[in-house]
């Protein structure tokens, strides 16, 4: 059975383009133009993944509300924010509501597909028993690349998909400097300097939530970042 992707987007052209792209990838797609439509459909049947725009018709923050309601219906359903809004505040708010990723609309369809695929892989992995082979360990850090889950000293650190990929790219080769381009490639995303910086900042903060002495992500000024054990 085809996985069902719900696209909630008020701009018909974009909605249809995304729908076509996902359909081409072999997914079933339902599209909704506003929150009311989407919620009534979700009440009947939950999709396997939701792509949500923040501003929905006459609700500038309708996507956030929708995300909250959706997360209440299912704690594990992958949710991706895809929006024209690229402010730091929006990203933080979206991720805090339990979204798995926060993407801007300049992301290419290929990158978007990669993320959708990755999220489905994670859903599958979570259903299966843990497999040791897909785990990357670096000192206190444990990265489960299947489930896309990070742990620090055994404590789960909740990372968005982009953040997870950035941590993964850094921790795979400790001591090696990863520049911004490398991190963007790893995260399947095009971001500017400040957005990368804020991602790194958020990663540090999340790990510091688990361990206040966390200092493994180092800035190499002018070049990038590296993982220090």
């Amino acid at each position: 059975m085809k996985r069902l992707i719900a696209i909630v987007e008020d701009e018909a052209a974009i909605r249809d383009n995304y729908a076509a792209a996902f359909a081409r990838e072999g997914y079933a797609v339902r599209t909704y133009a506003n929150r009311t439509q989407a919620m009534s459909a979700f009440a009947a049947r939950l999709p396997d993944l939701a792509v949500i725009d923040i501003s929905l018709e006459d609700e500038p923050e309708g996507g956030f509300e929708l995300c909250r309601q959706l997360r209440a219906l299912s704690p594990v359903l992958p949710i991706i924010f895809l929006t024209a809004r690229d402010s730091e505040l929006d990203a933080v708010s979206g991720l805090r509501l339990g979204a798995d990723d926060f993407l801007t609309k300049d992301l290419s369809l290929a990158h978007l597909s990669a993320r959708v695929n990755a999220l489905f892989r994670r859903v599958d992995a979570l259903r299966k028993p843990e497999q040791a082979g897909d785990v990357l360990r670096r000192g206190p850090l444990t990265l489960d690349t299947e489930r896309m889950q990070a742990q620090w000293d055994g404590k789960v650190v909740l990372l968005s998909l982009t953040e997870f990929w950035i941590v993964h790219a850094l921790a795979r080769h400790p001591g090696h400097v990863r520049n911004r381009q490398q991190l963007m490639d790893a995260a399947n995303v095009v971001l500017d300097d400040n957005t990368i910086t804020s991602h790194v900042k958020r990663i540090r903060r999340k790990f510091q939530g688990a361990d206040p002495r966390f200092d493994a992500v180092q800035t190499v000024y002018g070049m990038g970042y590296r993982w220090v054990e």
Partner: protein
Amino acid sequence: MSLRLKLLLLGLLTLVLPWAGCRYAREMESALREGEQTSLQSVAETLATSLEGRLDLLYRAPQGGDSQDAAALLESGPYDLKPVALTAAPLVDGYSEDWPRDAAAWAWYEKDAAHRFGVLTGVYERVLYLLLEVRDEHPVFDAAGASPLDARATGDRVWLGFQDPQGGERQVFLAATGPGAITARYIESGEYGQQLAQLEPRIRGVWQLSPGGYRLELRVPLSMLGAGFGVLIDDRDVRGGAPLSYGSLHPDDLRTLGHLIVAAPELTGYLAQFSQPGLKLAVATPGGQVLARVDELKRVAELAPAPPLIARLYRRFVDQPGAQPPIEARVSVYDREHRTVIGTLEVTQTPDRWLRLRDRALTRMLNFTLATSIVVVLAMFAFAVWLALRLSRLRQASESALTRAGLIASFPDTEARDELGDVARSFSRLLGRLNEYTGYLRTLAGKLAHEIRTPLTIVRSSLENLEAEQVPSSARAYLERARQGSERLNAILLAMGAATRVEEAIGGAERSRFDLVPLIESAVAAYRGAFTERRFAAELPPGPVMMDGAPDLIVQMLDKLIDNAVDFSPVGSSITVRLRLAAPEAVLEVDNLGPPLPSEAGRLFESLWQSRGDGNGRPHFGLGLYIVRLIAEFHGGSASASNLPDGSGARFSIRLALPA
């Protein structure tokens, strides 16, 4: 001209008040003078009336004559002498320097062109003074040691003939053996009929030689004299020769031919009764010969206290240059029948009298008006200073209101209800509107980027979908071009939003303490790898340079500076990154070779100032240096650009505040 000066000059206009006061004082002065003239005239007339017909008071009674017969007295003959009333006794020394210089007062007698003499007579305190100027080509003195009566030894001789108070004729002569003091003698018949020359000690004088003759100065007490008086010269060309006699005595018997017309002894006393300080009374003969005078002109100090210094100062401004002439009144004194003029009365008054009156009024008025002027000028000046202060505050506020970036700083509110307050308020309103507008402009790029993003997403996703479709290979090229175009558009949007994101990043930046030196070292090392076509030199201080701030932002700032330096410098050239300490700041400088800066270098750091593209199609929105400035300002510093001293390139300097 400053406002202060203008108002001050305006205030000086009030000096018109004292000026008008001075004009008024002059008018008043002439009115006063007229009044004084009138009153002086009436005083003179009253006095003249009191003297009317009083010939006895005016003149010494002529010998044996009727003192009431004015006509007889005043029809003076050629031999009458009219002594002037002297103001001081002349020094009897044979010189004329201390006599009044009045040619009309001389009486001249002559025999012929070579023989003539003049007599000047004067009276002072009941003494008659005579000055004789004799023209004589051959002055001859008596032989020394001889008797004055020895005819062979006789030289030039001067005879005085006069009537004594009893009317008897008397004669004295003056003879000298040389220049010097002489005493008159008279001839007396001795016991045996012989003639004796007796001394008359009351008549003394000095005999001096003068150019063209000789001169005698004599004093004779008036008490000796009656009415008749005359002088006769015995002129001899050789000692003991026959004399040439001429003068106002009968040459045969030396009888007096003329009279001495002198004021009565009581006249001066009479006039003195009417004398006042500052007043001069003078009685003269109808011919103008002064008989008596009482002069109190100099005693003005008694009129009023001396004017204070300030009044004298004012007087200098008010008075026309030149001394104030005294006022005079001249009236004739008539005889009893009011037919004949028997004398003239002249009353003179010093101007000080009314001048002092005027001065008192003038001083008060000038004091008042000058004080008014000073108060007005000071008030105007204070007002001007206050106005200027407010204006300069307004100016400063308006100058500092608009920062170089077009941001509006606060503009002070004013409660003032006047026009200046209105100006300040309307300025404030204007700035407010301007602020809204610049705010709109500043956010325009970001808003525009946001608005364009949705249609761009439609284009890009459509293109990506299209690529997945069966597209004829002939159309592939167009598809690729469309994709490239949309990529470029996307890059432009990213750049346009960059400033907004930096502002956001600055807003959320966390400050920490870090060392600038390793940070810059590491960054420069990275640039060496990134820009292989440029050489990089780092000049860093030996010790650590600790500062508070966001290291990420500092690096981002350095990135922008290096981007800028690379864009404008030729391939292979060197870029110098320099950090130096200039307490309390650290100065970060990036030098690059290349073209000089545009003339508006100050605007380089403004948003969207420089819009250009480089050869790679990367969009430039002049945001790089704007971001540099934002970051520098976040660190309590500033950014500036200048050309290198030798003009070979540009230098961008960032001042960063160091922690205290």
